[in-house]
Structures are given as structure tokens and as C-alpha cells.
């Protein structure tokens, strides 16, 4: 019986140059694996592969040199360690994330929780073409949000709280966009210059700022054969419920409008970005 390569690819088995050998892509969320999962992956690579694994460019792990005949046994072995195959092809791919606010001092949002939530909501959903989510915790952009079809960047919206300010002057220097100025003992934030990096708040010795931790969402990023930087429509999204509705709307728009094999950016170009902006604004304001 001929192997069903499409089904295998969907299940994360990537055909290798070497006949009947597959590089098995694993399901990794937000770049995290437990030590139990790692131990199982090592065991499977040793027993069924050639003893090495590959770290993919999007935070997954692949075990190369898996034999066609061993596929079921490999899946069962991995399941013992809580490891599942990942996906490839025209569907929602690995949700990538930096370490975010749970670990990193620079993080403005909990990227890993959000990655898990998006993964549960969309992972492997069938679409006209691949669709990538990436989540980065702050303006340092370690995770390169804008190269994804839908990128999420954490940010902090700030409002100076005079009652707790000791007037040290650190915030004005911590700001890299020239948005924070101190005039006559008052801190003034030029909202048109603020990029929501949160450095004024993070550097402040008394945290004399009221803050809202939120999201900057970009659409239509690509970094393969064609390169395009995803663009934001709404400067700052304050609550997660709205973020989720916007993600739903973007995926829905892609599912309804894209041609097979067409990335989100090209759907937006062909159908008209205005139409998409209208849809997003409707969801955002609704």
C-alpha cells in the first residue's frame, strides 16, 4: 500500500530525502517542554531515530530518521511521556512564544499562558494555507512577532500617579522614545510617542504609574520566500477577551477569503486591506 504522505505530513511526519525515513515534528507550545517530555524524546530518538533531534526555527523539535513501519509504535512511545506529533501543511501551526512575564524581567504579558490558550483554541485548524501565531512579551521583540501571520506583542499603557512619585527623574531617562518629560515637577507622557514598552514603569523606584498590560497585534507577516512585516490595525488592545475575538475574526477572514496556498498577507492584498480593517474594527468596537 502506498503511503499517504499528505496524512503523514498533517500528523507531523515530514518526508526526508532518504526513502521511507521521516523527520517527526513534535507538538511544542510556546517553546516549553518538561524534563519528562525531553527524556521521552531522547529515548525515542535513540531507539527509533539515529540518536539526534533537530530544533526547528519555530521552537519545535523534530526527530529525524523515523521509519515508516515504526510510526504507530513511535506515537505510542511518545504518548507515554506526554508528547504528541505536531503538524505541517495548510493549518494553524505551532504557537511560538518568548518566556514572557512569568520568567523575564522585561516581559509585559504572560506569553506562555496565552500560547497555551491559542494552541487549545486553534491548533491544527484546517485553513487554505499555513497560519502562524507568534507571541513576544515586550518591545525587545525576541520572538519577532511581526514575521507571523498573526503576531502578538505585550505592552504596558501607563498613566503617571503623582501621589507616589518621588521626583527622582529616572523615568524620563528610561524612556527611549522621548515620550516621558518632566516639567515643573510633573511627569508628562506624550501618548503619540509612547510605544507601550513599559520601561518608565519598570524603572520607577516607587512604581508611581497606573498600568494596563495589553497587546499590540500585527497581521500578515511573512518570512519565507516572500518577506513582509505584519502591521497593526489597533495601536493597543487592553483586554484579552477582545484579543481573542480579534484572533477569531482574523482566522475567520482568512478561512473565508483565502485561495488555497495563499498566505494571509496576499489574501489581504488581493481582497483589500480595507475590508479586513472594517471587520477588525467591527469586532473591536462591538
Amino acid at each position: 500500500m502506498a503511503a499517504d504522505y499528505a496524512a503523514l505530513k498533517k500528523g507531523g511526519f515530514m518526508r526526508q530525502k532518504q526513502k521511507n525515513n521521516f523527520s517527526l515534528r513534535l507538538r511544542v507550545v510556546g517553546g516549553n517542554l518538561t524534563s519528562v517530555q525531553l527524556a521521552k524524546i531522547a529515548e525515542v530518538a535513540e531507539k527509533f531515530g539515529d540518536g539526534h533531534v533537530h530544533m526547528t526555527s519555530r521552537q519545535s523539535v523534530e526527530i529525524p530518521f523515523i521509519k515508516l513501519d515504526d510510526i504507530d509504535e513511535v506515537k505510542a512511545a511518545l504518548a507515554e511521556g506526554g508528547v504528541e506529533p505536531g503538524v505541517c501543511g495548510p493549518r494553524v501551526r505551532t504557537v511560538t512564544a518568548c518566556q514572557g512575564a512569568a520568567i523575564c524581567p522585561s516581559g509585559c504579558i504572560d506569553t506562555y499562558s496565552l500560547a497555551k490558550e491559542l494552541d487549545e483554541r486553534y491548533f491544527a485548524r484546517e485553513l487554505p494555507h499555513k497560519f502562524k501565531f507568534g507571541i513576544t512579551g515586550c518591545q525587545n521583540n525576541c520572538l519577532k512577532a511581526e514575521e507571523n501571520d498573526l503576531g502578538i506583542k505585550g505592552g504596558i499603557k501607563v498613566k503617571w500617579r503623582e501621589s507616589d512619585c518621588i521626583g527622582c527623574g529616572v523615568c524620563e531617562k528610561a524612556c527611549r522614545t522621548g515620550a516621558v518629560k518632566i516639567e515643573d515637577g510633573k511627569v508628562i507622557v506624550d501618548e503619540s510617542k509612547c510605544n507601550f514598552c513599559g520601561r518608565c514603569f519598570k524603572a520607577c523606584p516607587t512604581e508611581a504609574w497606573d498600568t494596563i498590560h495589553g497587546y499590540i497585534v500585527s497581521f500578515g507577516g511573512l518570512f519565507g520566500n516572500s518577506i513582509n512585516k505584519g502591521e497593526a490595525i489597533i495601536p493597543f488592545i487592553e483586554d484579552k477577551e477582545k484579543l481573542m475575538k480579534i484572533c477569531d475574526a482574523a482566522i475567520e477572514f482568512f478561512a473565508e477569503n483565502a485561495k488555497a496556498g495563499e498566505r494571509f498577507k496576499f489574501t489581504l492584498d488581493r481582497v483589500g486591506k480595507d475590508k479586513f480593517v472594517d471587520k477588525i474594527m467591527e469586532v473591536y468596537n462591538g
Partner: protein
Amino acid sequence: MAEIEFEIDDNVDITDVVCPTTFVKAKVALEELDDGQILAVKMNDGEPVQNVPRSIKEEGHKILKLINNEDGTFTLIVKKVGD
């Protein structure tokens, strides 16, 4: 936000080093002090003044004031917290 005078216990000049040594040099100077003592850290404008105050805060010390020396340097007044 009136000008407040601080009684400085020690000084450190980090204008002669670059990141990450800037923070390390300030941290070492703080380690020499006792809880509640005050250190004046002289640093360059630009990257050091953007980042060093926050790193010192994250170590748990208390920042009291950032003084612009009007010569391309700043002096950060820090109260040591902890032994």
C-alpha cells in the same frame, strides 16, 4: 518634588566601563555598604542611564534621585536595602 540633600556614604564612578560591567561595578560597590547606607553612582548619559537604575531597582535597592550633572553624566543616589 523639592530638592533633597542626601548624606552620601560612598561614591562609585562607572563612566569608565560599558554594559554589562556598568551594573556589575555599581552592584559590587553596593555590596560593600551596610543596609540603609547611601551610594552615589556616576554614569554616562545614553545606555547606562537608561538601564542601570532599573537593574539596581530589580536588585531590591531604593533609588532616591537621579541628578543631571549637565556634563553628559548623571549621578544616581541609591539607598542600600539588605545586608
